[in-house]
């Protein structure tokens, strides 16, 4: 029996759901359903500022960029010198504090990488990445 075009379309569209749902069930524990894999929780500048002294600001850019200008009170923590920069950060940290990591522009991945290393390697909770990065802070400061 020849089905009409519409029925054929619906049948194909519907049948594809079955293996798709099966595969989704297999991947059900993947944390990427809500967030891109490896993404730390983003935080807006306003939210981070509202945390006040509970926020520990971390600059993931190069030392040169940090020297030129950084968020007041921020600590430098990048992958170039991770081993020597990390201990003072851990000294300043406490379980109630919220870590806000930033770098240049949204497309820079340094802040995400540093945040991920803090979460995975150091096991620290409450690690966030600043949306808009350093440029967002500079724009708000003007």
């Amino acid at each position, binding site marked *: 029996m020849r089905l009409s075009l519409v029925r054929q379309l619906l049948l194909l569209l519907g049948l594809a759901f079955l293996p798709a749902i099966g595969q989704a069930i297999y991947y059900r524990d993947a944390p990427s359903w809500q967030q891109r894999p490896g993404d730390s929780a983003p935080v807006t500048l306003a939210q981070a500022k509202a945390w006040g002294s509970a926020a520990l600001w971390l600059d993931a*850019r190069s030392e040169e960029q940090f020297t030129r200008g950084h968020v007041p009170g921020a600590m430098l923590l990048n992958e*170039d010198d991770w*081993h020597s920069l*990390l*201990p003072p950060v851990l*000294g300043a940290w406490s379980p109630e504090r919220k870590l806000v990591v930033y770098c*240049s522009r949204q497309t*820079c991945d340094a802040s995400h990488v540093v945040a991920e290393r803090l979460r995975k*390697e*150091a096991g620290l909770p409450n690690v966030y990445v600043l949306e808009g990065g350093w440029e967002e802070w500079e724009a708000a400061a003007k």
Partner: protein
Amino acid sequence: MKRNTILALLGLFGLFAGTAHAALVWEKSEVELNPSLSDKTAVAHFKYKNTGEQPVKITSVHSSCGCTTAALAKDEVEPNESGEITATFNIGDRSGVQNKTITVMTDDQPAQAKVLRLKATIPQLITVAPIFVYWSEKDKLELKTITVDVGDFPVTKLTVTPTDKSIETEVKPGANKKQFLIVVRPTESGRPINASLKIEPDYPKDAPKLFYANVRVDSRATATPPPQ
């Protein structure tokens, strides 16, 4: 009517394909690098050639992170001229697979950003997990364990040196030949401790590499007596 429609569509696609041809052609847009344990940088060369009839100007070269610098010999590329962009990736304290991009903008038509990809697989001598052990003021000063997994290298021994004498450490064999356990125990209470553990594998012998774990003990934690 049907034949004409097909011909028209094919013609349109051909036209589209014909106009979308850029003059600057890249030999490779993805380079994979495998630096050795002792390397501090990894360098990639991206070669290009101007196959068009007009000079092409490279207007900007921008990398995705500060760790990769891209150098250009000159920015104006004459017809038939070749050149290259040298990307130097600073390894620093990075490990594992690193993906970095370099975006090149030109005045080529059709104007587009060319993304060059650099993939560096940095060998991991050992992996330390976790790199931070912490006792809050409420925690009892009980043992904590750091697991060290060895990569594809002949490491047979680890030497662990705490930077604070009140931190005791002991290295034990792990679940297999490629694993070690570092048992950490603070012996004092009453003062806050913020120390590092210097971890030194016995390979490579000529250029030893140091790894670190961090220990923090907040004051007023109660000490447990050492095991008998």
